[in-house]
């Protein structure tokens, strides 16, 4: 019986044309992209586009699974063993944690891709109710008595840290670089925050669904999405005079991708974000594209405003320690009501 099986296999092998094995389609591959909350819809579209591109280029089928949650929490999950081939998070600080605490990526991860490994950007804007009844035009209006501001807790939300630093940067400019007055300004702003949600999606629920507050500080892409999908003409976007350039970074998780043998495709996945198609998809989901030609095409969607970046605060490590770590400035200026 065993001889018969061996003979049959030998005959079958002989019948195959030379090199048939080499011509077989490459094995299907699955990638896991661990991202933060607001990118869910962006990556649904982008993953489909990349799968088409990759199939056409290599003949290999790729399935990209997505995981979304708070940026810091997602980083902790990866450090704790979630097998992410790539991460696309809200803050460089959270990606740094993969290098510092998880030793999953090299410390110079941010230099491996163009534009600080941030293929698209966003900024922080205001979403107000239709007609802007409280006449909110700029950051200074957020500390007026009677103005109710919705923003999440910067201790727990990556997006809220951008909000906080944008307000701080505005105040530094307004008060000539006086840090004391900047602190008083941000403290006054947070006194106008009636509910401190733990994340950006919770803050959106507070503002949109529960009808609380006069203004919500939020990612530009989230504000535009809310306008398009949830607001239905009930909200307006207010661009402040100055805001922060938010650079959500991306990187391959070296240790996982090397172990799973997915590094080449994981790298291609992130590189393709910089392609014209990748940039167009990002822009259509309200992220500011890096590529000039795509930016020009969507120029009307993204008004030009004065932007400063995280380097103004000495980078994320310094900003985190100074403002958001336990005992930092936020702990001193914010008193829960």
């Amino acid at each position, binding site marked *: 019986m065993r001889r018969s099986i061996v003979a049959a296999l030998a005959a079958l092998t002989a019948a195959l044309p030379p090199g048939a094995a080499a011509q077989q389609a490459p094995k299907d591959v699955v990638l896991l992209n661990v991202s933060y909350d607001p990118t869910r819809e962006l990556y649904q579209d982008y993953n489909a586009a990349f799968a088409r591109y990759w199939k056409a280029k290599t003949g290999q089928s790729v399935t990209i699974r997505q995981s979304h949650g708070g940026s810091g929490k997602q980083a902790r999950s990866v450090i704790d063993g979630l097998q992410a081939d790539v991460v696309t998070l809200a803050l460089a600080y959270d990606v740094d944690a993969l290098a510092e605490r998880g030793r999953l990526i090299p410390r110079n991860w941010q230099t491996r891709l163009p534009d600080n490994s941030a293929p698209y950007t966003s900024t922080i804007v205001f979403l107000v109710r239709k007609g802007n009844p409280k006449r909110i035009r700029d950051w*200074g209006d957020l500390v007026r008595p*009677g103005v*109710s501001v919705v923003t999440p807790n910067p201790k727990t939300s990556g997006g809220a840290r951008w909000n906080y630093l944008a307000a701080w940067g505005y105040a530094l400019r307004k008060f000539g670089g006086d840090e004391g007055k900047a602190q008083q*300004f941000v403290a006054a702003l947070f006194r106008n925050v009636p509910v401190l949600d733990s994340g950006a999606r919770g803050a959106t629920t507070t503002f949109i669904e529960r009808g*609380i507050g006069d203004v919500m500080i939020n990612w530009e892409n989230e504000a535009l999405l809310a306008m398009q999908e949830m607001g239905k003409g009930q909200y307006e976007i207010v661009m402040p005079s100055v805001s922060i350039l938010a650079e959500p970074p991306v990187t391959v998780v070296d240790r996982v991708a090397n172990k799973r043998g997915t590094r080449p495709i994981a790298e291609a996945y992130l590189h393709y974000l910089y392609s014209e198609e990748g940039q167009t998809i990002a822009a259509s989901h309200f992220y500011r594209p890096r590529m000039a030609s795509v930016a020009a095409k969507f120029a009307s969607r993204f008004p030009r405003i004065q932007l400063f970046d995280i380097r103004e605060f000495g980078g994320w490590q310094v900003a985190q320690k100074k403002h958001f770590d336990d005992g930092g400035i936020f702990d001193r200026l914010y008193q829960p009501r």
Partner: protein
Amino acid sequence: MRATTLIVAVALALATTAARAQAQLPAPTTPDDSTAVRPPETLEDLIQRVRVLERKLELKQEEDAARAKAAPAIVVAGDGVAFRAADGSFQLRLRGYVQDDARMYQGVAHPGTSAFLLRRVRPILEATALQRYTLRIMPDFGNGQTVLYDAYVEAAFLPQLGLRFGKFKPPVGLERLQSATNLMFVERALPTALVPNRDLGVQLQGVVGGGLLSYALGVFNGVNDGGMADTDTDNAKEVAARLFAQPFQASESDALRRLGFGVAATRGAVHGTLTSVSLPSYSSPGQLAFFRYRADGKATGTAIASGDHVRLAPQGWYYRGPLSVLGEYVISRQAVALDTASATLRNRAWQVAAAYAVTGEDAGAKGIRPRSVFDPAKGSWGAIELTARVHQLRLDDDAFPRFADPTASARSARAWAAGLNWYLNPNVKLVLDYERTRFAGGAKTGDRAPERALFSRIQFAF
């Protein structure tokens, strides 16, 4: 609904108070250059306040739910208390049992002392990390002593492959491997006297074929028959192995499904000294020694272990519905020396035991679980099991008279017993046994007097 109404009422009261206060106090200032003054409370302000309160309540509930989800779980059940990490990665479990016995010997001239005794008092601590690594610690405070019975770590890599090291039961005697809480009788039968009780070592173990075959293979310090020790007296080690098959466990027929049989063996070498003879004594079901090797403290009058020690133990059990049958046979072959004399002695024991749950519960290696709990007011009586056994231990004829005194040590003990187990509930079990043991030899003239004993036990296990 009631909560919302309450919140609205509270909010309105707060708003009214705040409005009054607002009228009396100057408006707060901010570092910004705004000169706006807080307007008086409006209906919209009040609605906002209510919404904020509702949202805060909602967030508090979400936070509480998340905290509850992340909090360690405490599970209290009939089989112990478990403290479990929220992610299930670590568990600490506390179990235990107490056996409170009465042992009554029949006959005025009997050498035993009838007494009540705490036979076993055993708290059990088990910790499990990552569902794979288990630590078990079980001391015993029974009989007025403190003895560490189990202290081992087990790593279960796969069902087919696990590793256990520490102090535990070597894989030999069938009845010995049963938990003391699940025994048919108050005391184990005579074959258990020939197998190790607890030993220190390391053991590979596993189950293959989905339970078709279980195996264990270990290396131990080596202990006397029925013995246990926390230290070793020589460099020689004992290898123990056991194979146990349940070939019909997947069968649809109930007739053979729970038939299990196997064989266990040990092999080692033991060399005793005058101060540590490394030889056992054997006790009757009433826990009275009926055989001892000669030991007067002098080389000319003390038997010692002098080489190979091999055990072989074929064994099996059968369960069908309320019926349990257990049988085992043990040969313990040991080299013994006394002064210039030496011999390899073969001591043998066997038992056949059976139980039947007259209340109809299914029997198993872990005893029976009563269908009802004892509650006379409701007319429920728990589970009742009737038991019977015969067993024998026979010493090698060559042991007499050179290595053992035939006027003090019996050549054999043969016993029969009948009993009743009453499971009041899954935790409480009452046992009543009568056992009669006859001896061959062991007296200055003729045979040692038969042992007739009544055993009773109240067991609480969790």
